[in-house]
């Protein structure tokens, strides 16, 4: 009945639009007809209200709206377009919400409680993971025992789903850790402070959850926290565990599979019969721009393998996939690596969409927080997103050949940062900060190592508290609408997997 009403309304609106179209002088414009086509697609879209067999939560860490905009233009310009008109794969998803990312005690969030909110349904305390915000105290292990929350992974695993985690950061880093860990300090990746006898480090918690059958597959970096300090890994790096535990050995002896480079990754048996641990770097995996495909897999490679593995489970799966280093490149003030990792994230989402069906798989694409990144104006169409801002050409599509100059007579880049290592103000010998903008050239600013100019001098560029976007498709995706709290994401996932 509901569908019939919607269809009737859609027909009436389409007829009204058709009649208006005949009379408007702009009716022949490509912009107008494209707008009409989008309207028709929206009118014909029907929400999928059945139960979700699978849920994939894609998180590009630090990929707020401005960062995502930069990636969109970069991807478009790579494709030979002007850039602004480009549509990233997830931007074509039918449902969208804005997400408020603050932590219970922080206007500017960090990635631990934000990912925790998505995985438990409650906002959390700055720098903690999956502890009740009413009692958790950062860095106080005594506050853990009474406050541990139940994760979405634990809930769906009890219901028969397989669970996977993929990240280009260390697998013990905040966003992947929120799938399986509960800790008063996100930095307790490989050990806990003396006296914290009721606490476990994050790597140990992953192994515990793999042994318990909650987590079935984990791909990422962070090998160091799974090997003891006296063991050297395949790449010549030493482990960092002080308790002598060799979790890689223990994993393989217990019948699990382990991969540490491209060769062993490709040799994995993905039939879903054994747990799989892939640790492809000592620390974080390489930025996509620096990655050697012969050495380690891409985020898209890992996404495809994870879905291939998890899809063997008849009861479905939950998979969290993180592009962890969009965030790190922003912290570095290096827009080049931000957008090149952003493009790889988009490829991973496209792969996830291709390998699953809308009817039974809820796909959510979001970020945990934004950064202090900003876009300058007024740049003409097609100004290179990593380069200098060109002036708008009168009556033409593409920018003019004239660079826009600031009041100091110098050109400037399209992207800037409010703070960070690219600060124009540099420390002087007497400890004061001063400086002036350089006479920038296109060659200099498009170098892969270039740091965009920043205002406030800081060693590391910071997160910001502004909203991020969430794109969704599949069962119950229509429940993402308006401006929502970040912990609401869990509630839609949980409803989607249990809906009648």
């Amino acid at each position: 009945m509901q569908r019939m009403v919607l269809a009737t309304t859609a027909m009436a609106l389409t007829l009204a639009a058709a009649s208006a179209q005949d009379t408007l002088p702009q009716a022949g414009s490509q912009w107008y007809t494209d707008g009409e086509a989008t309207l028709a697609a929206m009118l014909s879209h029907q929400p999928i209200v059945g139960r979700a067999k699978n849920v994939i939560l894609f998180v590009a860490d630090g990929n707020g709206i401005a960062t995502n905009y930069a990636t969109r233009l970069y991807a478009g310009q790579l494709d030979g377009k002007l850039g602004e008109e480009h549509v990233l794969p997830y931007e074509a998803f039918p449902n969208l919400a804005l997400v408020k990312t603050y932590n219970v005690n922080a206007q500017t969030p960090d990635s631990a409680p934000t990912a925790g909110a998505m995985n438990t349904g409650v906002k959390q305390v700055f720098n903690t993971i999956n502890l009740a915000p009413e009692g958790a105290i950062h860095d106080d292990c005594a506050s853990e025992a009474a406050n541990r929350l139940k994760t979405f992974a634990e809930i769906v695993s009890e219901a028969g789903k397989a669970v996977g985690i993929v990240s280009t950061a260390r697998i013990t880093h905040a966003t992947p850790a929120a799938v399986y860990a509960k800790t008063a300090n996100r930095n307790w990746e490989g050990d806990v402070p003396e006296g914290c006898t009721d606490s476990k480090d994050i790597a140990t918690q992953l192994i515990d959850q793999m042994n318990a059958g909650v987590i079935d597959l984990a791909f990422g970096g962070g090998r160091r926290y799974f090997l003891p300090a006296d063991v050297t890994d395949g790449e010549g790096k030493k482990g960092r565990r002080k308790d002598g535990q060799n979790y890689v050995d223990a994993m393989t002896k217990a019948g699990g599979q382990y991969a540490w480079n491209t060769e062993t990754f490709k040799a994995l048996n993905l039939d879903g019969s054994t747990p799989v641990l892939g640790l492809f770097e000592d620390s974080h995996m390489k930025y996509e721009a620096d990655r050697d495909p012969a050495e380690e897999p891409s985020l898209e490679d890992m996404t495809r393998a994870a879905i291939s593995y998890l899809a063997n489970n008849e009861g479905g799966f939950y998979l969290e996939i993180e592009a962890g280093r969009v965030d790190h490149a922003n912290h570095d003030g290096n827009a080049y690596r931000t957008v090149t990792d952003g493009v790889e994230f988009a490829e991973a989402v496209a792969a996830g969409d291709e390998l699953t069906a809308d009817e039974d798989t809820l796909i959510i694409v979001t970020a945990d927080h934004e950064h202090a990144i900003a876009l300058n104006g007024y740049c003409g169409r097609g100004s290179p997103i990593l380069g200098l801002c060109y002036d708008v050409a009168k009556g033409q599509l593409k920018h003019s050949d004239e660079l826009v100059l600031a009041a100091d007579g110098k050109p400037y880049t399209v992207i800037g940062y409010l703070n960070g290592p690219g600060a124009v103000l540099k420390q002087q010998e007497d400890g004061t900060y001063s400086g002036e903008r350089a006479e920038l050239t296109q060659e200099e600013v498009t170098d892969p190592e270039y740091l965009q100019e920043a205002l406030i001098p800081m060693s590391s560029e910071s997160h910001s508290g502004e909203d991020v976007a969430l794109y969704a498709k599949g069962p119950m995706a229509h429940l993402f609408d308006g401006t929502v709290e970040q912990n609401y994401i869990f509630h839609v996932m949980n409803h989607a997997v249990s809906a009648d």
Partner: protein
Amino acid sequence: MDRRQFTFGALAMPALSLAGPAAAADTVRMRDLYNKDLSFSDYAEAHAGERIAVAGFMAPPLKAEATFFVLTKRPLAVCPFCESEAEWPDDILAIYTKRAIVVVPFNVRIVTRGMLELGTFRDPETGFLSRVRLADASYDRA
């Protein structure tokens, strides 16, 4: 010329007398020394044992009054939300200077000139392990 520049200029004099201005055309970047798999580039292999000039950034030195610092390809941002302790990138260049270093802020570009040495070396004093170094080096702001 301010006092800092003068100091660096004086330090760099022996190298500069041969090599010219800091940002001369012969200056290479860190990425010119490494391939993606972190093996040494053809340029590095061809210039081992020769004096070369490399642009980069001085990582905050491990100790004062040292004749050693690490050159990084981008400013070494210390990110509390990325790392729980100091992390060195894989592609760094160890610099052994002629004179005690005068610290340059981590985000000011410098050009370092010195004798290119390839191969693993553990500094007996600091324990710092390096795969590639510039020895007998001097540096200046780019």
